[in-house]
């Protein structure tokens, strides 16, 4: 069979094969309760990957996502007491704002996004250290439960986090498929010169893509902080690699223009299955990043569009 035609179907086939394989080896794996808690646990990572999808969809990358989430855990812990529920808005605004900076630096100062976001990530990390005084912070448990307790509660046997994830997926899917923003981002990813020659304000849409990525990384950080009831400048370390893996394994290549948020949902589930199977096979947490690194290389090598990328440096 022609690999090019087979390629778009690769992600969900991979997911099914993985689920079946792990299910055969580990007979507790396919129980609904196990699957639900597995899916619930991956939600912060999924939200971050959702944001990253926008950056990668236009052919860029956002390496600041993890530092952004770190920063937000600190922001949320520090400002929950004075601001109450409004802290959520503050978190998302900080993420959106720093994403805008990455986008501005990329489009106006012409710094490639892997450098601009790396630099903004460094800034976010420093801010987190400054705000936290380099300590792990704890939220007031009672206040957390009254303001954000619903996020980590369950409805029946379904973790509420899954509803949050589904809601965000629906919103981003709507943006991608039905709005001028989504159409413009697709055009920029698939053929930026043609988009520019059609009179599209390419720079504005690219900045927006990075801003959305930042805002969703912030949302991921907030949820993570609520789950752990606290924050620290390094608490979300280890998120970035699996999040990028989720986007690429899902079928949005680094060259952009194809794939999208639905692909990322599938990619995140693949990551979840790989992760839980590693637990089952007793692979140490310290070795998991190695596996994700290898999966990432394989995913990029398989999905990248060679026609768009003549020279790789």
């Amino acid at each position, binding site marked *: 069979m022609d690999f090019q035609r087979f390629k778009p179907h690769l992600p969900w086939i991979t997911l099914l094969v993985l689920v079946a394989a792990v299910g055969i080896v580990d007979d507790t794996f396919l129980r609904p309760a196990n699957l639900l808690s597995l899916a619930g646990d991956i939600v912060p990572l999924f939200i971050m990957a959702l944001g990253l999808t926008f950056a990668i969809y236009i052919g860029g990358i956002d390496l600041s996502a993890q530092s952004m989430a770190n920063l937000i855990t600190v922001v949320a812990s520090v400002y929950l007491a004075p601001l109450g529920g409004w802290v959520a808005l503050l978190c998302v605004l900080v993420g959106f704002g720093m994403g805008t900076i990455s986008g501005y630096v990329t489009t106006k100062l012409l710094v490639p996004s892997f450098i601009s976001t790396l630099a903004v990530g460094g800034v976010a990390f420093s801010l987190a250290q400054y705000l936290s005084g380099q300590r792990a912070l704890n939220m007031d448990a009672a206040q957390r439960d009254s303001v954000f307790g619903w996020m980590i509660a369950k409805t029946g046997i379904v973790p509420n986090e899954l509803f949050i994830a589904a809601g965000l997926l629906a919103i981003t899917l709507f943006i991608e498929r*039905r*709005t*001028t*923003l989504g*159409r*413009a981002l*697709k*055009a920029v990813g*698939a*053929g930026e*010169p*043609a*988009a*520019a*020659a*059609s*009179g*599209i*304000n390419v720079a504005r849409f690219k900045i927006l893509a990075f801003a959305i990525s930042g805002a969703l990384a912030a949302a991921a950080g907030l949820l993570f902080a609520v789950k752990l009831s606290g924050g620290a400048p390094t608490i979300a370390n280890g998120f970035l690699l699996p999040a990028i893996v989720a986007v690429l394994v899902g079928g949005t290549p680094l060259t952009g*223009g*194809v794939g999208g948020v639905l692909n990322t949902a599938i990619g995140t589930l693949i990551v979840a299955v790989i992760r839980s199977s590693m637990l089952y096979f007793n692979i140490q947490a310290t070795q998991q990043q190695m596996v994700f690194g290898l999966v990432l290389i394989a995913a990029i090598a398989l999905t990248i569009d060679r026609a768009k990328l003549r020279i790789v440096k």
Partner: protein
Amino acid sequence: MYELKNIDKKFPGVHALKSVDFQVKRGEIVGLVGENGAGKSTLMKVIYGAYQPDGGQVLIDGKTVRFADPRAAMEQGIGMVFQEQSLITNLSVMENIFLGYEAQFARFGVIHWKSMAQAAKKQLAKVKLDIDPATVTADLSFAQRQLVELAKVLTLQERVKGNLVILLDEPTSVLAKEEVALLFKLVRELTTRASFIFVSHRIDEVMELCDRIYVMKDGAVVDVVDRGQKTVEQIQHKMVGRNVDKQYYREPRQKPFDASTVLMKLENIDLVGRVKDISLTLHAGEVLCLVGTEGSGREAILRTMYGMRSPTRGTMTIKGKPAQALSPQSAVARGLGYVPRERKIEGIVGGMTVYENMTLSQMGRHSSAGVLRIAGERALAKEWIAKLSIKASSEVADCANLSGGNQQKVVLAKWRSGGSDIMLLDHPTRGLDIGAKEDVYDMIRDMSDAGVGILLVADTLEEAIGLSHTILVIKDGAIQKRFDCNVGAKPSLFDLLHYMI
């Protein structure tokens, strides 16, 4: 000594070389002329080994050879002097000359610079260039770089036994008159050691230098002319081939334009680079054609009018209102449409559907509060697919899979469906087959009838003459001459060429 027999080369959708016979004798200078797209560059690529022919034979001294890549061709004594210069500007002259062949100066991987400099000096002497071989290439003038390029190819003399064949691709296009004379003198002297193939669009130069001229058209050699056998006019006629048919360019459909309605006006526009003091006026229904050689500044003017470049001086007005700090966004908002030369790069977005491409420039019109009305978009696309008889399986077909002509129709539909009334067309028929070309000509007349002002950079001179109401001839970034092209009183090819070259 070097011979091509029945060479055939096909690309998807294009028969680029049709059974070409070509011969270069020892010490001969052979010319190769033809219009854009006649197959000159494909033939050259076959000769220096960048393309492998699909059929036919390449013979050197009667023996069949086959080159896997340009390096293999070089081993057999065939070298290419590139038009877009192939020197790496941040390396020194000697490093460039021996690029890829440093091993002869190396010991245990360390290069002995002194002996390389000496060897380079010897090569430079062949082209009578007296410069320090350690000079960084970026510091040389264009003419000097051209000579270094030639010296680089002449290293083949030491490496290869037997005779050399050296291709010169448009070597004079950036040279001043005296430099051209020097180059020609040098080439003639070098014929004791090498044969040359000289490719140029300046027919007078080709006739001055060459012993024999191959004339190409539509992928085939249509004539071989010995020195002094034919005039410039006769060769040009061969290049164009047919007597230009008036119907072909839809000349009977040409009507006088509305001279009272000015759509766009440029006054004393200067650009970075060579373009100076451009003034022009585009009226409703007018087809205004910019004519000039490659690099004369035609495209730069077009892109300035679309807001992709900013003028350093002068004023532009669109429909009577000033257009300062124009960007493509504001240009589109004011009714401009741009059909770029690179259709696949700037014209359509491959990977997006026909309807998505058509509404890309006018998403605001098909959305409310940022939410697209996709049903409306698809209806619009269906209407235009029917109107322009675009061959696509449906409005959701991927544009990347359409043929060139249909892609171009999608690009035109994008602007026309959005109501653009100033159209900037850069080589709108480039790479299209004849039927698709005629469709584009019809569309140009339709637009003209509808009162659209059209600024055209045509693919060929005949196309420019046939389609336009007005021609502006541009040379070295300045307007040389204005021609009125009313039906029945159109200027001839040679009227234009006189001002172009």
